[in-house]
């Protein structure tokens, strides 16, 4: 959006069009920020003047910083892991050990969080780096969606909150299945249809124009594997790449945190919760709540507990399954990896599947 990767300005894009794209991105960013503030202002002016407005802004800033400060360690960790992968993991290892067929790939991806425990903020830079190394699409997408739930820490926190029971089992099983299903659906897609151009170009070694200055630039950029270099230098390069990843992802995280904080300051939770108790509407309401709250998956179980008494089990489960997969901040971060169209699918598909699951649960199971 704003931090331009030099290779994003691909040679096929003439300068003027490039500038227009940049202008549009600028405009959109500005619009989001202005909309968030504008909403706060207009609401405040109706509500009663400057002191009230000031309190609103203060609440907004507190929640924004809360989400950001909570997420930043995980983004730093994810970026550093991503940098280490870039420098120390050999592309051929991925080719050799990971399945390529859609179904096994999707299942492996869903379970990978058990070995690499990362949450929804850390997983994005890791997946992007693995895609640069030629990771099959299905594995990456299933990993991206499942990892925030299918990892030891979150499983433990869910168990602490709900104990051994339908919610605990349901959360794990359905998170696994929905993530695998979405991953499976992308099994037949080609990387260049799904990923941002900058990412899939990297392992496209067949590109014929090696003499072209720009293409040379790419090849040079991503031969991060330097077996000859001293270990210290390689670590330093890993950290360099981690820093670049951090900047690239932090802007999405910051915009997402601002949006989430704006929503929290403006949308009364009670309005959302009052919407309904019906088997369908309650599920939708909890999904919207999960999306808006953008709470870290390690603790959302404790939050869901507060709704367990008053809301249908299917809707609580939808909150616990859908929330970690997609929320405001993570879907913005997806923009750093996938094409915009695909990000819409990555929000809509889990949303639909979780909705189906919740409604089915409400209608067929009595807990």
């Amino acid at each position, binding site marked *: 959006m704003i931090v*331009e990767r030099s290779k994003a300005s691909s040679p096929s894009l003439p300068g003027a069009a490039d500038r227009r794209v940049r202008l549009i991105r600028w405009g959109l960013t500005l619009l989001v920020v202005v909309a968030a503030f504008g909403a706060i202002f207009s609401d405040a002016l109706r509500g009663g003047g400057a002191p009230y407005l000031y309190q609103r802004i203060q609440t907004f800033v*507190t929640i924004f910083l*809360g989400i950001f400060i909570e997420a930043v*360690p995980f983004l730093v960790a994810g970026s550093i892991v991503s940098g280490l992968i870039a420098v120390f993991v050999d592309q051929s290892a991925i080719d050799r050990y990971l399945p390529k067929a859609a179904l096994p790939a999707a299942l492996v991806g869903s379970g990978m969080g058990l070995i690499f425990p990362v949450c929804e903020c850390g997983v994005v830079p890791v997946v992007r780096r693995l895609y640069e190394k030629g990771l099959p699409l299905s594995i990456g997408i299933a990993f991206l969606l499942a990892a925030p739930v299918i990892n030891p820490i979150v499983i433990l926190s869910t168990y602490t909150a709900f104990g051994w029971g339908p919610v605990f089992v349901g959360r794990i099983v359905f998170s696994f299945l929905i993530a695998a299903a979405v991953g499976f659906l992308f099994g037949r897609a080609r990387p260049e249809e799904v990923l941002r151009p900058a990412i899939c170009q990297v392992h496209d070694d067949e590109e014929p124009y090696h003499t072209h200055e720009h293409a040379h630039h790419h090849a040079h950029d991503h031969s991060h594997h330097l077996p000859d270099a001293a270990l210290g230098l390689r670590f330093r390069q890993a950290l360099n790449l981690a820093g670049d990843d951090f900047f690239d992802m932090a802007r999405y995280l910051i915009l997402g945190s601002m949006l989430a904080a704006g929503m929290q300051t403006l949308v*009364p939770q009670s309005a959302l919760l009052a919407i309904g108790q019906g088997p369908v509407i309650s599920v939708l309401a909890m999904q919207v709540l999960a999306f808006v709250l953008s*709470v870290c998956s390690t603790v959302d179980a404790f939050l869901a507990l507060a709704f367990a008494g008053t809301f249908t089990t299917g809707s609580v489960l939808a909150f616990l399954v859908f929330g970690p997969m997609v929320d405001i901040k993570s879907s913005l971060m997806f923009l750093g990896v996938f094409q915009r169209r695909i990000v819409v699918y990555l929000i809509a598909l889990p949303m639909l599947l979780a909705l189906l699951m919740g409604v089915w649960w409400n209608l067929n199971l009595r807990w």
Partner: protein
Amino acid sequence: MNVLNRPRFQNALKALALLAMAIFLYTRLASGVLFFYINQRFMVYTVFAIVGLVMVALSYRPTSRRSESDEALHSHHQLGWAGLALVMAPIVLGLLVPPQPLGAAAMQNREIDVATQTRSALPAAVRAAAQKDARERNLLDWLHAFAASPNPAQEFAGQPVDVVGFIYHDERLGDNEVLVNRFVVSCCVADAGVVSMIVRWPDAASLPDDTWVQVKGVLQPGEFNGRAVPIVVAQEVIPTALPHQPYLYR
């Protein structure tokens, strides 16, 4: 070539931005303001983030051997002015707006829980709350205890209460009544819920919203929103300083 795009300038800029972020986090930690934002048990992650950011920032330092830096440390993410501004937004907002914990303003769009929620608490927390002496219980302990009881308004009548919270005037309350509240946080303030007790005190109207008070009193059966709830009949309401940790933790 724009000066911003020179590799050396880029590296310096990135290193400074990362260091600024680390210093910002460190000052939050050192001043205790961090607890306005996140649960104290996540403090260790913030420490990790500070160390990580400094490490990454140092990796951008200029190398003595030029050839190495050109060959291996060439980076390919250009940080533009707008990107920089966005990454600096948390720091700027954090310094511009004086840090305040969530208070009365944030209560206006939240569910108020005065023992109307049932069976929603952690069993372990409820047990721990039940073992505490009445005077030792904080607002959350009381709400846990109420949640475990089929008829809290009657069951707890006559028990002594000594809690700390901030003042919030709810329209549904009478003139001599006020809500005393604490926000409860599991992770960060994004997941904050609020626990409240109704306090009956003749001078209730004189206490402005967001005043922190210590309330000593006795529980009596009362009513809120048409439901029977325990309320505190205050014997003493003492204004206090903002606690070191303004939130209670789930």
